[in-house]
């Protein structure tokens, strides 16, 4: 049961982690102060994003593990579909964002 809940928590935590990575990347690119803070705190902005995303994923997974979903299988299915969409959209939007930044 614990492993089932941990897996469900990891699925939904991954959804929010992917969203966080996308937002962090765009914000850091548009706000030089954020990028500088990441670089000064973690030696490189890219390392900062990876460390923050990993820490966020672990903490959120632990928090969500404490919750009891009413229908675990339904939540699992919804989580995987949401994760697929969010990951695909984040990838396409990241390419589009850097394309736009290069073009203008």
């Amino acid at each position: 049961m614990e492993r089932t809940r941990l897996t469900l928590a990891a699925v939904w935590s991954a959804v929010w982690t992917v969203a966080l990575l996308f937002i962090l990347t765009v914000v850091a690119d548009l706000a030089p102060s954020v990028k500088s803070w990441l670089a000064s705190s973690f030696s490189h902005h890219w390392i900062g994003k990876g460390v923050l995303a990993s820490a966020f994923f672990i903490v959120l997974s632990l928090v969500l593990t404490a919750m009891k979903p009413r229908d675990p299988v339904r939540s699992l299915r919804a989580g995987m579909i949401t994760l697929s969409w969010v990951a695909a959209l984040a990838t396409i939007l990241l390419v589009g964002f850097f394309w736009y930044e290069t073009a203008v």
Partner: protein
Amino acid sequence: MSDLQFLSLILHIFLGVAAVICSYAVWMYLVRPKLHLHTLGRWSFWAFVLTVISWITGGYYYVTYYGKTVKPVILAGKYAWVHTIMTESKEHFFLLLPFLTLVLYLVIRFFPTEITEQPRVRSAIIWLAGIASVIGFAVTLFGVVISGAVR
């Protein structure tokens, strides 16, 4: 380039490609009519582990060598857009893969009955494996173009 940076680059490429192959194998094994859960478990485990090692080795090469030596060469050449579009987006959407492959492994490991018996759960994990594979292919393809732009 130091020996460690060279080794990091080689490991990043080979293990990264191996990780994409593992993700693709998970996708293809999930699509088959009869599921081999033990095989799926092994492929998904290695997809995650190899992605993480490729992340660490690629990160070391990127931070210590690419940014200081390769990036200025690309930006000064005819194909500066390869860095500003392809490297910038690749280095960031690569970060999604460790989480996607970990989720694939955990679901295959701890929800085998649901994947086998419930078509809607199986359909959802097929989508997830497909997206992880396509993002992996995109990372690989972008890497090839970036290498070409240096030359």
